[in-house]
């Protein structure tokens, strides 16, 4: 790289020690920045009355891209939740795909406009369709992992949830089963300390969800989710364990929710101002940008180039989705059962 800082050699940088190149870093950064730009555009469209609903992943992107980068993004599975925008992009969905979902258009690859926005799915990218009841996706992920093990396909499955979702019975049942069978699954908990408005202290009596892994017989680790490289490192170890047949890993990523729960929520009502301000300092996009500048991977010219490209992609996706055809009302009865 022309912009590589001569002082930041492979041996001395954190990313170098993890085996990540400058190109890797820039690609990871681009995914995080693209996810953020799409997310921000979604809010603008909602506030302008162009679309009816947004639920956000802002603040979670670094953890998602970091962990997903450690997986085989073609071969492995993702069972997302409604804040997994960046993970879905990393897995191969495009800005157009995501915008089609937001606008609920016929071409929405997740559901053809049948589900609310942020209920992503993509069969070709091995992203399983998920629902709104929280926690149900966890047993699906261990079922996928069980099938992978039985069939000897070598796939693993990443599944995500917030800390609130860990209160559900399905979450517990899934971890228990995965531990018993040492399944190739990576359980991600993106802990942003709020389940809509309910703070973590009223959700559980422990500081770290990760400690619960001990009760299921596999490791649980806590990572700073604003630290992309730390998330990658945790993901890499979890992938190694899964591929080696050592079983699941629970990764708790401490993240910040930079927006309200959804466009129907006002978080100022229940989050103190100081808390909201502190959250801003843990913005993974800012933290990662700072790191890239420090190690000389990102300079102003490169930054401008990346963000101009992202702006063009988001503009294109918005226009494309806005002009895309609505679902035909005559199709409301289709795909209830397999059509012969």
């Amino acid at each position: 790289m022309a912009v590589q800082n001569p002082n930041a050699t492979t041996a001395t940088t954190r990313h170098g020690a993890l085996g990540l190149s400058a190109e890797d870093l820039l690609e990871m950064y681009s995914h995080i920045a693209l996810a953020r730009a799409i997310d921000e555009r979604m809010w603008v469209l909602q506030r302008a009355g162009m679309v009816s609903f947004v639920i956000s992943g802002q603040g979670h992107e670094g953890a998602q891209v970091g962990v997903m980068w450690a997986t085989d993004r073609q071969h492995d599975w993702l069972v997302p939740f409604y804040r997994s925008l960046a993970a879905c992009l990393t897995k191969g969905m495009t800005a157009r795909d995501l915008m089609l979902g937001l606008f609920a258009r016929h071409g929405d690859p997740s559901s053809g406009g049948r589900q609310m926005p942020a209920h992503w799915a993509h069969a070709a990218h091995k992203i399983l369709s998920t629902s709104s009841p929280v926690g149900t996706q966890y047993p699906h992920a261990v079922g996928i992992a069980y099938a992978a093990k039985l069939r000897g396909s070598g796939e693993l499955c990443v599944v995500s949830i917030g800390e609130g979702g860990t209160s559900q019975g399905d979450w517990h049942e899934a971890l228990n089963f995965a531990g018993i069978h040492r399944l190739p699954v990576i359980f991600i908990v993106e802990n942003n300390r709020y389940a809509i408005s309910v703070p973590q202290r009223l959700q559980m009596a422990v500081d770290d969800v990760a400690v619960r892994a001990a009760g299921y017989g596999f490791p649980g680790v806590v990572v700073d989710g604003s630290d992309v490289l730390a998330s990658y490192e945790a993901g890499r170890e979890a992938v190694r364990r899964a591929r080696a047949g050592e079983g699941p890993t629970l990764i708790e990523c401490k993240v910040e929710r930079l927006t309200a729960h959804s466009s129907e929520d006002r978080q100022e009502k229940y989050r103190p101002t100081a808390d909201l301000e502190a959250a801003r300092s843990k913005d993974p996009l800012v933290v990662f940008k700072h790191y890239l500048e420090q190690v000389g991977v990102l300079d102003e010219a490169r930054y401008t180039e990346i963000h101009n490209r992202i702006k063009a992609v988001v503009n294109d996706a918005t226009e494309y989705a806005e002009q895309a055809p609505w679902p035909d009302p005559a199709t409301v009865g289709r795909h209830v059962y397999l059509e012969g």
Partner: protein
Amino acid sequence: MAEMRLIDAVRQAMYEEMQRDERVLVLGEDVGLKGGVFGATDGFYAEFGEARVLDTPLAESLIVGVAVGMAANGLVPIAEIQFSDFIHPAFNQIVSEAARMRYRSNGAFGCPITIRAPYGGGVEVHGGLYHSQSIEAFYAHVPGLKVVTPYTPYDAKGLLKAAIRDPDPVLFLEHKRLYRSARGEVPDDDYLVPIGPAVVRRQGTTLSVFAYGQMLHETLQAGSQVAEEGIDAEVVDLRTLRPLDTETILASVRKTSKAMIVYEDNRFMGFGAEVAALIAEEAFDALDGPIVRVAGPEVPAVPYSDPLAAAFMPTAAKIADAMRRLAAY
């Protein structure tokens, strides 16, 4: 061709499907070494091994949820719920997940799972409130699901094979009393009974009775009793509750002009209500009497003690009385 019990037919269907297709597996509580509490998977563990005859933790939501994931990744799971009374923790996984997977993904993902659940009362060992329930009404309501309940061993084998090969989720309800009381000829070879069509078990002209599961046994007995009195009942085995064979139902009503539905569940908003509404809407002009439902009383479930259990169950005698009243209308 061999004469066998319904439980043996269930077992044979699964055994043959697991031999035929290595993607098929069974999972549930006690399905392994024990071979299931009713013996449906007896001998499977030795034949197919632990990975395909999977004893699960005691967690019904997990059993169905894991099956949904397995199906997404290329397997064909048969999930056994030990008693249908315990299926309710899995309601969310069945209704919100399995049944909607295809619709909500616009056809991209399917959910080819079979959920077997023994149901019903009137068994020698009384089940009481939590080992006797009929649960079909909750699930037959749900688009995306298919709900099947066989009456004969022949149908049990053919319908279960059809369920396992079906590309969509099938709730396969097996009446516990029929497990050992229903006997019949079952071919050794591979055959399917299609999901959907009902079958007329007794031809008649006076009135039509629609039933399924163990209630067919009671209804056919009642039909024989009233035949001596000149009441010629037609008895239709619905077999599949969703999708419902409306054609056979309406054809029978048009033939006899009188309709009765018999089911073991409590009456209110039970499956019979749907059949009654169908007839009222589609064959009103053919009716020559009120549509009658014979069903359980409005109590939570079948009580344990002998006299209470007997008071709950629709019996041949109760059905015969209802037939006499309807015939005389």
